[in-house]
């Protein structure tokens, strides 16, 4: 009866399957963990793309303020997510081949990517706190740049107009922000309109429902809640995706690397 140890030569595929029989249990376990890491890193890659695409279109608020590391962190996470994936494929190969040099190279590469991902997580979390820790920065930016003619002013004006219209809100904390403080809007348009017309409720044909009532401030004719809650929730959502999911991937990777170092010392 012919067995796998027969002296006859076999096709390369059979020789490869034979070599797999020599893979140790530790190596197989490592390969299983590596595949989990691959799935997690691909998910990080996908989430970071979602944040970078900015479906809520609120980037100008962070861009103009200079605190845009939530998005810079997302771009870094796109790189690190994909790099993790590729490196873990390399790691499986290194473990299967029982090569000390390849496993060492894998460890060094993973450590470098670990450092990049740490930077992404920490700066995204910090800039989120700068931007939306309280409503002051968003409010000051709105008062300074809304209705301003500069490039930053046009971006901020377009962003705020869209948010006020789509979310149904006015001002940062409330419409009173527009009358508690002076603003570029007040300087440009005077005091006839206490707040922009985007604060007013509209009919289905987009005409303002009641212009005079909106100017007086009747609650039934304008949006009386502030926009900061919506802005804060969007930036927090982006930050949890990049920063905290990245953190969880890093924690998994930490243990994986310690396991790989133990394996390296044993082969």
């Amino acid at each position: 009866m012919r067995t796998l140890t027969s002296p006859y030569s076999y096709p390369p595929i059979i020789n490869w399957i034979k070599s797999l029989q020599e893979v140790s249990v530790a190596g197989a376990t490592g390969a299983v963990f590596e595949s989990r890491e691959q799935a997690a890193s691909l998910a990080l890659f996908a989430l970071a793309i979602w944040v970078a695409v900015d479906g809520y279109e609120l980037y100008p608020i962070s861009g103009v303020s200079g605190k845009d590391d939530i998005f810079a962190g997302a771009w870094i996470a796109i790189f690190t997510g994909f790099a993790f994936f590729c490196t873990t494929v390399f790691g499986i190969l290194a473990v299967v081949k029982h090569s000390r040099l390849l496993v060492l190279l894998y460890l060094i590469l993973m450590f470098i990517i670990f450092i990049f991902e740490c930077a992404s997580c920490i700066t995204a979390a910090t800039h989120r706190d700068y931007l939306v820790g309280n409503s002051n920065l968003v409010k000051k930016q709105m008062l300074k740049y809304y209705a301003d003619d500069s490039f930053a002013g046009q971006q901020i004006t377009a962003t705020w107009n869209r948010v006020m219209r789509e979310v149904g809100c006015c001002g940062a904390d409330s419409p009173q922000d527009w009358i508690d403080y002076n603003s570029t809007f007040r300087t440009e348009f005077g005091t006839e309109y206490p707040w922009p017309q985007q604060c007013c409720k509209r009919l289905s044909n987009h005409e303002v429902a009641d212009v005079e009532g909106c100017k007086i401030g009747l609650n039934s004719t304008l949006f009386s809640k502030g926009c900061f809650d919506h802005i804060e929730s969007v930036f927090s959502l982006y930050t949890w995706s990049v920063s905290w999911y990245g953190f969880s991937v890093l924690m998994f990777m930490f243990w994986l690397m310690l396991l790989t170092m133990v394996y390296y010392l044993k082969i």
Partner: protein
Amino acid sequence: MLTTLLFVGALFTLTNAEFTVRVLKEEDGVVTGIFTDSLLLSLPPCSLEGQNVSLAYNDSNNKSWILEHIFIVPSCGNMTGTGREGHLVTSNIGLYKVSDLASGTNYSFQYHTDLEKSNVVTASTRSAQDYSGIDTVLPARSGSMIVITVILSVAMAFLLVALTITIVLSNDED
């Protein structure tokens, strides 16, 4: 004699009858009753329907203004509708907007009709603050920022040490 006294007394009471006026607040269904250059006053009660109303107001420097015959008190039915007549608004709250006021100034207001007048209500217009005075430094070091920085820094340092020890030990074996 007694009848004359009673009649004079009644006339005196009528001419000094007071109704209430106040500045509107958020609870009345407006964003605010106090702007930087205007104020929203409530209307005289609809029991005075049809009477011509004038407004007298003065500021803290005793400079005074009188707006004669600014509106006619709407009927009670009209209060539930919506109308505009100059600065008079008859919606379910009913208000009159006094404009062209100076910001940050204290004013006293009183309505006058043919026979009655209101109480004197005092209010101050808002003064708008400069937006550059809003403080935008980092509000506080939040817990999440500190936790993520500390944990990741410690993990990074630990991995560096572990990697160094691994390489040293493997070299010793060689």
